[in-house]
């Protein structure tokens, strides 16, 4: 009798758990910015998990086996696209054995759809480093292009759970309005520094520079994924001095030593900027991350 009761309770719990899960769209986002956008659009109707915590390199999220069951059960996988996740996502998708989220399937939500890529290489020869064949994938650092990602996420959620379309539409509109207001603030904050040049460790910032009227002047890396040589550092410092480049950006996942040396030798200010939410303290959401970036850049350039 006790066994029967136990089994009944177990079955009921399992069924309840299944129903809770079934009520929500299960989304796995590769990076924290996409997870945040999905939460904002999906509201209470989505269960969002992010593979990255925010402090990783966008190309270096570890392939943990614990990600496999998450992806196995996901209704949607939301990704940056433009080959940004090439180092970990294809293998994880392969291991997930979830046919609904494979490339080209409805559950594969490529947020780059509708984004015009920049810096598309003419050649993918390795002499150019670990290049992205579809162009620079770091468009999420341009908040206007992030709106395209929001639209892509919205469309995927509506297609997956059309019964919640009205809620998704309401959430999307509210979030876009909020983002638009912030974009205005960010543009105003960086307007005095229009035309200012800066360099960074990896090529994360061209879209950001374009949006806010700054000029992206080059990388500390020799080529994407290839550490700088002493000659490259020397040439970069000389150029920074000649062109009066006042700012060096270091992304948190790269070592501080070389960027600090370059900043010191060139007389520029070194700042540490996150490349996705959670990369630095108090940047847990996309808007908070962009707030932090704009605030930090403006403060550094003001000092100069």
């Amino acid at each position: 009798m006790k066994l029967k009761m136990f089994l009944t309770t177990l079955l009921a719990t399992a069924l309840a758990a299944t129903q809770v899960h079934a009520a929500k769209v299960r989304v796995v986002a590769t990076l924290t910015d996409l997870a945040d956008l999905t939460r904002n659009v999906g509201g209470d109707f989505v269960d969002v998990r992010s593979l990255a915590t925010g402090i990783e390199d966008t190309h270096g999220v570890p392939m943990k086996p614990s990600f496999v069951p998450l992806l196995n059960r996901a209704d949607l996988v939301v990704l940056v696209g433009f080959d940004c996740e090439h180092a970990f996502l294809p293998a994880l998708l392969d291991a997930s054995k979830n046919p609904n989220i494979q490339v080209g399937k409805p559950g594969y939500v490529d947020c780059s759809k509708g984004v015009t890529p920049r810096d598309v290489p003419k050649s993918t020869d390795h002499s150019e480093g670990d290049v992205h064949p579809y162009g620079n994938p770091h468009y999420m650092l341009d908040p206007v292009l992030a709106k395209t990602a929001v639209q892509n996420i919205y469309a995927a959620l509506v297609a997956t759970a059309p019964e919640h379309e009205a809620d998704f539409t309401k959430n999307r509109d509210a979030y876009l309005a909020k983002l638009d207001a912030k974009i205005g603030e960010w543009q105003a904050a960086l307007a005095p520094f229009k035309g200012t040049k800066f360099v960074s460790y990896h090529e994360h910032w061209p879209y950001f520079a374009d949006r806010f009227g700054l000029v992206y002047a080059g990388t500390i890396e020799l080529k994407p994924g290839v550490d700088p040589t002493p000659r490259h550092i020397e040439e970069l410092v000389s150029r920074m001095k000649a062109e009066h480049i006042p700012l060096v950006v270091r992304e948190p996942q790269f070592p501080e030593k070389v960027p600090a040396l370059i900043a010191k030798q060139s007389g520029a200010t070194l700042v540490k900027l996150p490349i996705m939410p959670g990369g630095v303290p108090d940047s847990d959401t996309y808007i908070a991350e962009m707030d932090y970036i704009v605030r930090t850049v403006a403060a550094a350039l003001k000092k100069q």
Partner: protein
Amino acid sequence: MPEAWRLDLRNNMKMKALMGVSSALCLSIPLCGIARAQETNKPADIEQRMKQMQEMFEQREHDMEARFEKKIAAQDAEIETLKKQIGGGTTNLPPAAVAGAPENRAEVPNLIKELNDKVDSVVEAQKKTLPGEFNPAIGVVGETIFSYHSKPSDQTGSSRPGGFDVWQRSVELNVAASVDPFAKGWIVANASADSATGESTFGIEEAALQTTSLPGNLTLTAGRFFGEFGRLAYIHDHELPFVNRPLALDTYIGGESRSDGAQINWLVPVEHYISLTAGVGDQFGGDSPNPNNPGTMRNLGGLNFWGRASTSFDLTDNWQAEAGASGLWNPKTQDRGGVLVQPDNSTLTEKERRLAGLDFKLSYVPLRDNQFNSFTWGTELLFSSDRFLVDPDGSLNPANPTPGLSGDEFKHTVNSLGLYSYVSYKWSRQWSAGFLFDYLQSAQNHNDETFAYSPFITFALSHWNQLRLQYTHTDRSAISGLKPDDAVYLQWQWIIGAHSHGWTQR
């Protein structure tokens, strides 16, 4: 009048009569219609209907004019707005458009150039396809080994000659692509050039098909592939974290776990990662000197059966542990490896192959800077329990003029152990170093044991170009009489073309 003309005239007359009848019929049809209309409608009705039609036409004409005027007005307004934008006028467009709008006409050529660049950019991106999406992804891995062994190979049992040696161990061609929406396929062909023997070899290491859409979390692989056993047996030589394959894998498995067969993998549908694999194939081990010889007839027992269960635990965000248990069984090896002559001149002939393995890997992969900093401890314990036909007097020795059974033969199981354990630490994107420890009991005599110690250091100039220096001391082997060996290896490895970060290489 000639007869022919008479015929023509008669024909002409018939033709005229026919045409007359036809014309009368054609004329009669509309006339009939009118007559029928006159019978059914009054003239007032017709007039009314024609009036309605005229009104309808006029209304339509008016609507069309109104629509055209509205459209032209809208287009004029749009043109005006665009003119204002180009001229630097104020707009109420969203920030995206404001940010992109030129401030004066002088910027228009720049804008056009920027737009052209963007279009070119899209065109360039569209020219490319994902690896394997349509065209096969093709890559080549090259591996050259420079080495020095302190003693001749006949004294150490090494496969490489003593002294200085250069060996193009592999030139590996990888081709992979989706076969259709349901499967993918890949081929790994390997060529090697051996300066010691002057021989070049070419072989197919893998040529397999794998399903991509089986239900129930299942994946089926068939063809020639590396069967899943342990942690490193199904990884290619050049993907190992050190220069040489551990002794236990070389001895008990036969190098890479190559098999011609089929393997099914099941991802257990629970929230924790558990993977189960089972396979069957005609042999197991790529470098086995003599694979299973089925003779003229192979029964089910002549096949190899293997399986593996593995799981993983996230100890913290940065530390993971992975563990696995594997098994291999070949009920009837059919004299795999032939007659093995022992130092005391007795012989062993393998009749049944049984192998079990436990593997464990502890990884420190810091989330923030794992490209610059990581640590791995990997270890694998193998337990072999082979069943042999023992021939104490060596009458089966193929060197005998008439080898054959002498009646003293008996079956005996030899239990033996082998293990390897390594640590590897990476302290920059380019530099890493580690240490490999090997322990091995001979699968034919567990008292015949040896140890090896291998410190190594790796310099990765880039992701595709790496050098590794390794020193290996292999201890003496008392029973087989092999002498200790000291070897230094310099491995230079490069990759061109497509390369993937596969699940097995994680």
